[in-house]
């Protein structure tokens, strides 16, 4: 999981750094890269102090330290300079929230897999999997005896729901990615009605997952990750809808981690299609070199 990008990063991708200051409103430019980490840290602290969402502080800290350390090392080795730690910090926190295990080692390993996947699994200089989505899916498949990601946390209550909806909406709206979240939510609700019709289960049971706060981390912060989503607004909506549709089928097959697995497959596929289209349009010749540097740095 990564939080939606900050304005400066978007502007860099468009080659217009100066626009960042104009669009960031009251927030100084230097602060922008730190906003997502600050937001997610606040969510983490609020959630843990009110509901004890974390397995423990020490495990989450281990996940964060592992992610940031590895990002520093791999970034330095690969690029010859120190990368900004914000992205890795967020990945570490994501692992701390989403992974559930009484052991310590899964937290370190999941963070390590998440970060290393960014450097090991690259196509034309871009990593195509959302790092923490990759790490958690890998752990769920390879280490099922030791980990789970069952979302029975955060107290299941209305207050936490509102907190996450408000904070999440603000963040994705600022990042101009609210359309991705809304597309997914609308599709999920529509498909939950269809699923209820097919399975004969109460509709409330089918729509239940999206009312869980942990699930909302997925729809606000994971599927909107700018580095592993396509560029065009229409394309982003199509990808979000496709994730919901694939998740629909996974759910009909009783897959507990349906959304994570759906993103695992749809995300990279969408990226590859976009690269193919770029290539056909002749832009691919310059994209890898530029993207290589920017993506790893970010």
């Amino acid at each position, binding site marked *: 999981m990564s939080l939606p990008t900050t304005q400066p990063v978007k502007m860099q991708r468009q080659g217009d750094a100066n626009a960042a200051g104009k669009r960031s409103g009251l927030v100084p430019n230097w602060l922008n890269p730190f906003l997502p980490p600050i937001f997610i840290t606040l969510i983490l602290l609020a959630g843990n102090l009110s*509901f*004890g969402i974390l*397995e*423990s502080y020490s495990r989450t800290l281990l996940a964060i330290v592992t992610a940031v350390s590895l990002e520093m090392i*791999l970034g330095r*080795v*690969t690029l010859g300079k120190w990368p900004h730690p914000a992205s890795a910090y967020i990945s570490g926190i994501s692992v701390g929230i989403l992974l*559930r*295990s*009484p*052991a310590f*080692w899964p937290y370190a*390993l999941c963070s*390590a*897999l998440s970060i*290393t*996947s960014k*450097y*090991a*699994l690259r196509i034309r200089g871009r990593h195509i999997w959302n790092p923490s989505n990759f790490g958690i899916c*890998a*752990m*769920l498949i*390879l*280490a*099922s*005896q*030791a*980990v*789970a990601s*069952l*979302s*029975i*946390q*955060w*107290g*299941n*209550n*209305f207050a936490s*729901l509102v907190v996450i909806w408000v904070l999440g909406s603000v963040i994705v709206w600022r990042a101009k990615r609210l359309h991705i979240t809304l597309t997914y939510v609308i599709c999920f609700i529509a498909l939950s009605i269809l699923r209820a019709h097919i*399975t004969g*289960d*109460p509709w*409330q*049971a*089918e*729509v*239940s*997952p999206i*009312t*869980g706060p*942990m*699930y909302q981390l997925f729809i606000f912060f994971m599927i909107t990750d700018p580095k592993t989503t396509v560029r065009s607004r229409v394309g982003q909506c199509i990808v979000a809808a496709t994730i919901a549709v694939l998740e629909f089928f996974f*759910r009909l097959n*009783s*897959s*507990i981690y349906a959304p994570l697995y759906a993103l695992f497959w749809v995300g990279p596929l969408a990226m590859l299609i976009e690269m193919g289209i770029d290539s056909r349009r002749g832009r691919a010749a310059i994209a890898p070199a530029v993207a290589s540097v920017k993506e790893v740095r970010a």
Partner: protein
Amino acid sequence: MKRAVVTRIFITIFFAVLLAVPWMVRHFSSSPKVAGVHDPQAALSRYGFSLREVSHAAGIDFVHQAPQLDAKLDGIMPEVASMGASVSIVDYDRDGWPDIYVTNSAIGSKNHLYHNNHDGTFTDVAEQMGIADVNQPGTGVSMGAVWGDYDNDGYEDLFLIKWGRPELFHNDQGKHFIRVTDQAGLPPWINANSAVWLDYDGDGRLDLFVGGYYPEDVNLWNLRNTRMMPDSFEYANNGGRKYLFHNLGNGHFEEVSAKVGIDSRRWMLACAAADLRGTGYPDLFVANDYGVSELYINDHGHFHEAGKEAGVGFAPKSGMNVSFGDIFDQGKFSVYVSNISEEGVLIQGNNLWVPQSGSTLKYVNMARDLGVELGGWSFGAQFGDFNNDGNLDLYLANGFVSLDRDRSYWYDFAKVAGGNSSIIGDAANWPAFNGRSLSGYQQKRLWLNDGEGKFVDVAQAVGAVDTYDGRAVALADLWNTGALDIVVANQRGPLLIYKNTVDPDNQWIEFSLEGVKSNRSAIGAQVTLYWDGKEQLQQVSGGNGFASENDRRLHFGLGKNPSIEKAVIHWPSGEVQTLNNLASDRLYTVKEAQ
């Protein structure tokens, strides 16, 4: 080769190694291989004991009947009606042989009191004793039983834990039981699964702690609506209230929970009491479903909840058991709390809370380090030295709902459990079970303590091979042979008696205590045995594990050729009694000094 290429190769190899780590962890950290087939002789020679299931041969063919609740719950009946099988050990007629009481949970079904015939068989005498027909329509059904001599007349009385009207039966000289619920002043309805006798204020009379599961205003056979489920699967606070009944000494009890600082509506499933700090007053450890455990510290009769400070009340799980055991032979109790672990779905892990040295009560969870963390959907557990080697072992019952082996309810469970409280709190929103299993057909665990900080599961090798939905576990030397036998109550399944045969070279000693200034059951009395440079602490309990109570007698394994130094008894009255010149392979009956 270019540096970039070398870097890329290095990162790829590193990535591959990371992907292989889970396999390596599974491969290298797995427990030592234990034979999966039961060969009694091999088990005896390798592990020092062997179990044989003898219930039918002992004349016991009891099969538990689950409750059938309001039809509004039909779809999820296997889940909500998943408890009620319990077992408690009592010598109700003081003949020196442990008897067995088991509960049934269907309306109209009968509970059984199996009298020990001293010849390896048992006879059900519940009907003639007046404690069989206790599940009548309109009164709810049995969930468990705890025994304590509340009037100090020398005979153990019965408190019947129910989803319904709780009942207190007075034991009339071991000849009959008389219902005294109304005189005692108990409330008309509690939906409880656990209770414990304790003398919380040290007045020499047994008091009674009861914790509700469903709220007490819910009649599960006549629901007003279906909003009776927990409002969260980790932070539920809408369960039944807790009660502390103070024994006034005249057959009456006064409910004092609020007065003494106990106020909680967590969904309690298990509790046990022990003096954990050496103050002379028993503290209360409570395991809650859908939430954190609670530790009620007893300050001379007044409690304060200290779960978080002690380290046991932070991570919410699905607590279903509380057992105390001095697993390191260091004179301190560790606490075992069972939870849920299902591979690939939910890994809560059971907790083994080990006390830390220092002036304040602090615990760390060492279940993983010691190898007793993963036990499936775990329920009742008991510590006992099954091979008499001087180290406390651990038996764990497990398995939730065993129906269709090939179809699981886990997906639907997870789907709803993660949702908003308004959805999960209403039973009508839960998909129907339709004959599916939920963590069913699980293999039991019998973890053997090697005395060096590791437990190894030998259940299959020593003969604990059933896969019923285990609930309550009680330990007793049923045949007075110096070996701890295991009695297991299974939901919708048979009562199992695992008779234990132990290597005769491994010796033992047992103590049967009787209080004088203390309560006559000696509940709360602690015995520390010193032998061969070791010390082991045990206590007489008024209920522990899950819906169970062990034999009053304390059983210590001693190993081969032991040299016993002494036994020190700390009575609840504060008296300390030291026994010297003790011999092994003997039962000592000890009366508190006047």
